[in-house]
């Protein structure tokens, strides 16, 4: 499925007192299913804004975003919530686990919201996901009791809770040491191996990982797109 994710002429600008600021300018982008994509660029280049278009967290000012034949840009808030829950798992830089819930409960909560995993299978699935990200011992701990790397792995498990086809991560290793970074990035590679489409924003040197594509942004525009045609 070559055009799994399609950005057509996507622009996003912000109005402010000092005038209009263009964070994304006429982005045209096609990503194939099962690809491992890195989005690179300096701080402020528009990486997070681009991801927000993809997850429906934010809407384009102009242009269309179509993912797996859904017009994401046209969905309203409540339709988006349902769509996002089923289709996109999100991993943030600052882990963003619910601090008052245990690791297991964080994952169950995501399942509860989206309600595609049958109730009876949930507990088992939590166990399997935590085993997959390698923190089975931390199941019943609160996030504060975990190291940064463990928290991020818990967040990845949560992003996978409802088995979404797409996983996006915004600077997931920005707060981690290099050893943990390697573990996390390898985890993403494994996930690609299971058929997920994984899109990672990073300004790390891309040393550890073989990406299918590396898209580089500058001032809201794609200035480099290495390996664009690999899967085509």
């Amino acid at each position, binding site marked *: 499925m070559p055009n799994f994710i399609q950005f057509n002429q996507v622009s996003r600008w912000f109005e402010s007192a000092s005038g209009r600021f263009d964070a994304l300018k006429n982005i045209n982008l096609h990503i194939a*299913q099962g690809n491992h994509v890195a989005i690179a660029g300096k701080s402020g280049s528009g990486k997070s804004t681009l991801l*927000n278009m993809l*997850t429906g*967290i*934010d809407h384009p000012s102009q242009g269309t975003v179509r993912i*797996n*034949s859904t017009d994401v840009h046209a969905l309203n*808030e*409540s339709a988006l*919530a*349902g769509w*996002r*829950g*089923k289709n996109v798992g*999100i991993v*943030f830089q600052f882990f*963003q686990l*619910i*601090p*008052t*819930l245990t690791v*297991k*409960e964080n994952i*169950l*909560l*995501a*399942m*509860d*919201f*989206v*309600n595609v995993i049958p*109730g*009876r*299978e*949930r*507990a*088992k*699935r*939590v*166990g*399997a*996901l935590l*085993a*997959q990200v390698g923190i089975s011992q931390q*199941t019943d701990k609160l996030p504060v009791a975990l190291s940064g790397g463990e928290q991020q792995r818990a967040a990845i498990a*949560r*992003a*996978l*809770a*409802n*088995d979404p*086809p797409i996983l996006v991560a915004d600077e997931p290793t920005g707060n981690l040491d290099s050893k943990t970074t390697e573990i996390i990035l390898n985890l993403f590679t494994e996930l690609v191996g*299971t*058929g*997920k489409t994984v899109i990672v924003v990073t300004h790390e040197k891309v040393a550890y990982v073989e990406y299918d594509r590396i898209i580089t942004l500058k001032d809201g525009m794609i200035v480099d797109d290495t390996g664009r045609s690999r899967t085509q």
Partner: protein
Amino acid sequence: MHIKSPLLGGVARSAGVGYINTTMNIKFRKVTGDLRVNPGRIILVIFALVIGLWGVGSILVSYAILNRDLNENYTRTNPLHAAITSKDFKRLDLTALRNRPEIEKAEFRDFATLRIETHPGEWIPLWLFGVGDFNTFSLARIYNQNGSGGPITPEAGAMLVERDGLRFSNLKAGPPARVRAGGRVVNVPVAGIGFDPAQAPGTQDHLIYAYVDNKTYSKITGEAANQRLIIRFKNAKTKQEVQAAADGLIDYFKTLGIAADTVKIPKFMEHPHQWQLNTLLFMEGSIGFLAFFLGAVLVSQLIAAILAGQIRQIGILKAIGASRFQVFQIYLMMALALGVMSGMIAIPLAVKSGYAYACFVANILNFEVLTTSLPHYMYIYLMASGLLLPVLLSLPAILKGTRIPVREALNDYGINQDAGVKKSKLLDKMRLPVNLALAFENTMRRKKRLAVTVAAMSLGVAIFNTGFNVQQSLKDLLSDVNNSMKHDVQVVLINQISKEEALKYFSGIGNIRRIETWNGGRGAMQNMVVSTDDGVGIIALPYNSDLLTFRSIKGRWLSGPAEPEIVMNQEAAVLYGNPPVGGYHTLSVRGKQLKAKLAGIVEEFEKPKIYMAQEQYDALANPDHYVNSLMFVARDKGYGKVMALKRDIEKAIEPSSLQVLYVMMQAERVKIIYDHLRIILVTIVFLAMLVLVVSAIGMASATSINIMERTREIGVLRAIGATPEIIYNLFVAEGMIVSIASIFIGLFFSWPLSIVASRFFGNLMLEVELHYSFSKTGFVITLIATLIFGWIASRIPAQRAVSVSTREALSYE
């Protein structure tokens, strides 16, 4: 299109962690988790909810009880509609009367006003009732001491005393009491104690009620029995209908050759002290509403602050797939959980204290609380308000929170930090020791909350101070009463006699400057709507007597002996529908009529009375210049000396043939009025205090929200070297600024509020507008109480601000 993940297969194979979740469970876990994060804040919310619910709940409960029970106590006695006296009732066939279509019940119940010795040498009025049969009251029934059943039947020669009289007298079951009837003193054994909830409480009116059988009545009073008939009419729904029925009955009696002497129709189907209860219920209701309102403002502020702290989490919840409704559910559950927790504490308390207050009032007004179980709707109200209150109050904040777009929610850095608030400026100032300017600047920062806080606190101050001012107005009224009558002891006789006869017994008493003799009797103004029942008391006195100095409401005092003039007090003016001053009215006294000019209306806290010059009265109805009341002016007006004078007067009366209605010290008269107002004065101050406390809690919560919001700023201040003392003083100073602002605004508004409230309460209780008084004590207490409350209210959260470590504060979101 759904993409099959190999992971699912793997999951199916791995052995499960215990199966725990139902749909609600996990969301509810989040709610309970959130509630536990900041126990201080949650305790504050619950505390505020409990106070609000408790206050409103106990008011609802006591209202439900009191509103019903005083009336129930009264109507349960089968109160009479009319009482008719006649010396000719031996010609009446009671059975035939009872068979008349308009009569529901009729019974003889003789009545005489005597005097009884309550303490050695102390005599007060005794209302003695002659009862036909203590086992079969058909109307105006009485009860045994605790109101649970019929009274005991006193043996011949003994009497039953009404229970309220025991509180202020030496009377008790067993030993005989000394009773004065006319010129004689009789020893009457007290056979037992009864309960008569239809009477004004004896403690307030300073009199004793007693009940005897017919023979004993005749023996004590020396009068024949069966001279007073009490009646209930069928289908009488208004006082006018009772009046008409009574008029018809009088005509019927005439055909039997029975001449009615008097016809008395009490207030229609209302306990004599219903007005006190109405005043209390009104105060309760309005203060309850106010406390509820203040509590509501406070709770909504706190819940909004909690939600503000959760915005980023809302963003995460939405990012991981929660719909707006699911987020809404979570916070709704939170509000409900708060409601359930506070309801569980507040509702039992409210029922308890509501009952306690109802019992307190019932005790003072001498009636029994009959409501043993509250009506079911009461519990529904209580639970509904307990659950709905937090939900309704948090609804705006919840809706706002759930509506915020995900991107903005994710970018939210905790509750408003007023990011970049002129920090450089703040830092500059921090080099100085803590100063008021900084506190002031901080106080001004959150204008909306500040406005709400100051408004709530000012309202508290205004009401608190108004409570004192109204109390002062009432006290001023009492001192007016005291000042308006300059005599020291008054002796009122049952009959009228010559002046010489009246005075001759008192010549030997030392501490008397002079004795003025007045006369008077019952009379009425004719051609007026209400000329029927009791009429008014007519007082005939020297027109220029210096014993009376009433405050004038309209017109002027009597101008001379030759003018046919009258002056009435405001109660009489109300009775006669505010007749025009300066107009001529026909006055009838002892069957004689006089056209007199209404010269003025004066303020007197008494029964309806009309004053006229002695000369006019004597010319009209008193050819023998008889007198019936003696006004003693003491030489030495000290309380003890006047007491001694009163005892001397009693001693002089004892062997005389004078038939005394009562002997009363002016100071006692004031005390009687005070006793009528006491419960209201106490309640005013209590409720005012409640409002101030609720306001202070509001302030404490606002301060703690401020501190919560500025935790990170506190961290910054600490990081650059501010000591805990500086920070502590900063927050306390902020609290004091709010208090002082509230004092100014509150005191300013308490002025018009006091004027309105004095008028309102005066009209409600006394049918006279109270004059606005400024209570100096109240002012000082308000000032001190507000400052202390303000200090405590800012001290507690400030303490918390100081206890947070710098690291925690800096990482606070």
